[in-house]
């Protein structure tokens, strides 16, 4: 299995405050990896550092190419789609415009049109509301839209920041089901950050646990889920 994303000795700073203290991990092509940890552990910062949205040092390699010192909008062109915390919906624009924006770096207009139809097949609710302002969608629908928007890039890697946040449990089940399907069928590698450790471990194949800016645990998702000690001390369930 080839390594798609390799992060080495990542340190990130907000002003004078250091948020990540030499964090290293890797993600295999085609895998669904989850990054777990409590509030403030540095999960979001890790994702933001990969997309150069926060000052950081260390090596980040994607498919063997270094990502450091590239601008956020350039990193997207490698095929990395980031669904930020809070979903990042373009609330004043229509659902369809949101999808078009996801593909704004692509040149193949025919492919974009057919991909929009594909998204509507994945998420029928978006088709019903395609002319509606995205801000009027419910939280769950907006999360679907955010995932669909990210897929419009035809990404190789999708970064998801707490997709379950603020959603009803049933909606979360639905969403995670779709994420698994996208991972398997569309061969999109996924790195998902979650506070809902139980659900994330069910979905993922690899898992890392972060505590105060360091990796404290890594391994097969099933092993971690089955290890009561880890669950109790780090994951709180």
């Amino acid at each position: 299995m080839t390594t798609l994303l390799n992060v080495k000795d990542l340190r990130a700073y907000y002003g004078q405050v250091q948020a990540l203290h030499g964090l290293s991990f890797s993600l295999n092509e085609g895998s669904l990896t989850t990054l777990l940890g409590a509030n403030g552990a540095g999960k979001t910062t890790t994702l933001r550092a990969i997309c150069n949205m926060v000052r950081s040092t260390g090596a980040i390699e994607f498919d063997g190419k270094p990502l450091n010192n590239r601008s956020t909008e350039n990193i997207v062109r490698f095929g990395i789609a980031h669904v930020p915390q809070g979903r990042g919906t373009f609330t004043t624009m229509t659902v369809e415009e949101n999808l078009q924006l996801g593909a704004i770096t692509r040149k193949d207009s025919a492919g974009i049109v057919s991909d929009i139809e594909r998204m509507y097949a994945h998420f029928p609710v978006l088709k019903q509301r395609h002319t509606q302002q995205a801000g009027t969608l419910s939280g769950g629908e907006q999360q679907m839209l955010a995932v669909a928007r990210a897929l419009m890039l035809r990404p190789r890697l999708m970064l998801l920041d707490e997709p379950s946040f603020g959603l009803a449990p049933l909606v979360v089940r639905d969403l995670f089901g779709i994420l698994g399907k996208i991972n398997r069928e569309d061969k999109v590698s996924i790195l998902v950050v979650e506070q809902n450790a139980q659900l994330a471990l069910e979905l993922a194949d690899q898992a890392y646990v972060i505590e105060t800016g360091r990796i404290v645990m890594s391994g097969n998702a099933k092993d971690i889920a089955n290890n009561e000690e880890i669950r109790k001390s780090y994951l709180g369930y």
Partner: protein
Amino acid sequence: MELFTNQVLAGIATGAIYACMALAVVMIYQAIDHLNFAQGEMAMFSTFISWQLMQWGVPYWAAFVITLAFSFVAGIAIERILFKPLAKAPILTNVAGFIALFAIINSSAGLIWDFTIKQYPTPFGSAPFLGSQLISTHQAGMVGVTVLLLLGLYFFFQYTRIGLAMRAAASVPESARLVGINTSWMIALGWGMATAIGSIAGMLIAPVVFLEPNMMGGVLIYGFAAAVLGGLTSPFGAVVGGFLVGIFENLAGTYIPGVGNELKLPIALALIISVLVVKPAGLFGRHIVKRV
């Protein structure tokens, strides 16, 4: 009744200019969250460029197009050189930047072309429009050009990818970068377009107010009034606001005793203040709610 119709039509004509200025102001406000106090001076300078070209024998419409191109490039240059470095600076630093720009452009124009009032030609002539005494051909031309411009902008923002990208960059910059939009250049592009729109306003109003370095002062204040009335977050509101302010200005000047021509400017300022007190978001603007 004829006086009333006459004043409303004349108001629509000048309103078209206010609409252009308001639109230019709103475009830059959407991109960088600041009011461009130098918008009027930039338009004035562009108008002088077109005048100079015509003095050198360039025909009107050729000069018009060259001036548009010049303004577009100049707007981008101003953003790159002056305001990009100020992007993260406090509000007052930006305000100082705008005032500096105002002073620099105003005095450069005075230095190059001096402060005497100059005639500026109109391509439409000033005969009565369609044989009616209500409105002149130049006034009709002002409205016509503005309507064409607005339609063009509407199609640009609604139906082109770059227009979509510009809207995205202005509404949620972080998400825009995450889909691969270079937001910094979208801001520069916005400056270029706003400057070009302003130059159209300058070239259309110059035959009415005559060409001189201070010609846009009053016009810009009406443009601000229009932008505030329509809502600073709404380009559509800016346009509607422009026409409303134009009509309001003319009717107030005609029917309210004592207002006349001298008190027209305070009326614009009174309008700005009343809107800010009664409906701060304007007629079509969104309320900005920020989580703290």
